[in-house]
């Protein structure tokens, strides 16, 4: 059941220099972003970073102190929520306790004066989409958390909004259900074809579901891009730390071929496009799963090498997590897939090695 038309060229949502100032602090500062039509977009960040405030401004529940918000090219700044062609799924679901499931879902349609026959047909279709047929006459209280969540989703989708806003909708579900719903939501979004904007603090969730992620910190967007892109090339220390372990080392750019001289000695090779100008201070990092462990002196190891001593080894089943202490970079995390039986013991001297293209540089 596709609701949206062909994805349009105009971005679904645009924020232009949006700032939200509260009495004693500023939640969102000079935010500019653009969400493509038909995509699953995630706003990711820790609590208090301003992601929910941003979402609420798109929905019309808060007004920006300054800046412009556009939906499909149309300026909606200052418009009340009921005048905007967007719908929201709230974190607490906000289902109307005094109405049946059917009436809950039909609420928006009724306010838009849709005929009874059409209401019945559309509600039926959307309930089928979220797999809740047969419970129309129950009250919200009688449903489980997961079911309520799907009602909230249905209630929003049935109105054919052009953009769907989701405010940490999976937060209240247990782990297993959350994982199931992540896949469900992604499936529904692709089937229905409209733009989803999903707010979450769970980086795994964002990376699973989103086409594009914007990582927010203290009211600003620090990094925006596809999941793989921002994971492998985080560009700021905050983003690299937020999306996973990062193993950061301080150094200075040496020459224009991608060499970085570490502050504590040694040279690391990186992709020169991921580094600032020659001579600049930089922090470089590498993801734990990109590092391999070798015995000292092993010449098969990739070019970037750092010697160290194993201080912890935890067997996780799929992989083994090592902590290796190095003179140049302190303690580094290494994750090795258990492909063979080679395990490194506590206290053993090893060499950590990885390919230059896996090195990323960050600021901040």
């Amino acid at each position, binding site marked *: 059941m596709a609701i949206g038309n062909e994805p349009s060229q105009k971005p679904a949502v645009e924020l232009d220099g949006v700032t939200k100032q509260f009495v004693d602090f500023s939640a969102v500062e000079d935010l500019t972003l653009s969400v493509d039509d038909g995509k699953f977009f995630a706003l990711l960040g820790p609590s208090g970073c301003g992601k929910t405030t941003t979402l609420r401004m798109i929905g019309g*529940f808060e007004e920006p102190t300054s800046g412009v918000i556009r939906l499909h090219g149309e300026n909606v700044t200052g418009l009340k929520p009921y005048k905007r062609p967007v719908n929201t799924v709230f974190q607490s679901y906000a289902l*109307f306790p005094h109405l049946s499931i059917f009436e809950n879902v039909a609420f928006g349609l009724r306010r838009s004066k849709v005929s009874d026959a059409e209401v019945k047909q559309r509600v039926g279709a959307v309930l089928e989409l979220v797999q809740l047929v047969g419970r129309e006459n129950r*009250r919200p209280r009688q449903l489980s958390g997961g079911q309520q969540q799907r009602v909230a989703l249905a209630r*929003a989708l049935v109105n054919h909004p052009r953009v769907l806003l989701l405010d940490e909708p999976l937060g209240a579900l247990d782990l297993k259900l959350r994982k199931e719903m992540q896949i469900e939501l992604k499936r529904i979004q692709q089937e229905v074809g409209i733009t989803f904007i999903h707010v979450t603090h769970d980086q795994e969730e964002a990376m699973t579901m989103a086409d594009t992620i914007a990582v927010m910190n203290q009211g600003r967007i620090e990094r925006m891009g596809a999941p793989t892109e921002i994971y492998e090339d985080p560009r700021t220390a905050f983003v690299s730390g937020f999306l996973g372990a990062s193993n950061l080392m301080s150094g200075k750019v040496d020459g224009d071929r991608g060499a970085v001289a570490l502050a504590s000695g040694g040279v690391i090779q990186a992709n020169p496009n991921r580094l600032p100008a020659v001579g600049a201070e930089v922090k470089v990092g590498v993801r734990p799963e990109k590092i391999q462990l070798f015995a000292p002196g092993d010449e098969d190891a990739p070019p970037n090498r750092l010697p160290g001593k194993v201080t912890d080894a935890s067997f996780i089943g799929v992989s083994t997590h090592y902590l290796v202490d190095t003179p140049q970079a302190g303690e580094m995390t290494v994750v090795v897939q258990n492909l063979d039986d080679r395990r490194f013991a506590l206290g053993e001297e090893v060499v950590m090695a990885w390919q230059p293209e896996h090195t990323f540089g960050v600021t901040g």
Partner: protein
Amino acid sequence: MPRVKRLILPVYLGAGLLYLFLPVLVVILFSFNDNHGRFNVRWQGFTLRHWLDPFRVEEIPQSLLVSIILALVSSAIATAIGTLIALALTRYRFKGRSPTNILLFFPMATPEVVMGSSLLGLFVATRFSTGWITLILAHILFIISYAVATVRARIVGFDRHLEEASMDLYANEWSTFRKVTLPLIMPGVFAAFLLGFALSLDDFVVSNFTSGRIQTYPLYVWSAARRGIPPQVNVWGTIIFVLTVTVMVLFLWSQKRRQRKVGI
């Protein structure tokens, strides 16, 4: 021994309730008293004759009618105003919260004498003659704070996002109020109305100051206390009591039923 300890509170509760109901029982009992004096204080035998002739003293049902109308009108108005205030206090952040709360508290903590006398002073100064209007104004005054308290307790209970959800689904503010807010706070509003009704019906002191020539039920009882109280007073008191209790029970019962279906 622990067994006995567990019983202390429930027993105490029972004793407390007994203590509270004692005067009630006396009032009801003495409506059946076969008394022959002016004062209905000593038990002289059981009779139904007062019940059979409740209109013997006309002033009683008359004053009751006055009290009931007064209570209905003033409670309705006070509840409406109080609901607005409760909505403002719970749903919005604004400057002046604290002074508002304090201002609302004062009427509840003021001795009725002071309230009554200051109101009378106001009416005298403005040369407003005491009568129905002053009575209603006075009653509204002391009910408002209680109405706010009651409705507020109810509103605090439910999800703040419900109204946002409603607006998100294309209902404007008025529509949201009618379709979402009002149905959900209705039990609280109704409870506030009942409370106001009871407070108004019960009021003596403030009414004494502001009623002029109008006689409410408590005012009648007061004047009768000097002269001699006909048992019909007890009869009517019992009737009102039974009626109000029935209304309250019905209200609570229907609430329980609705709660089970809707689950608030």
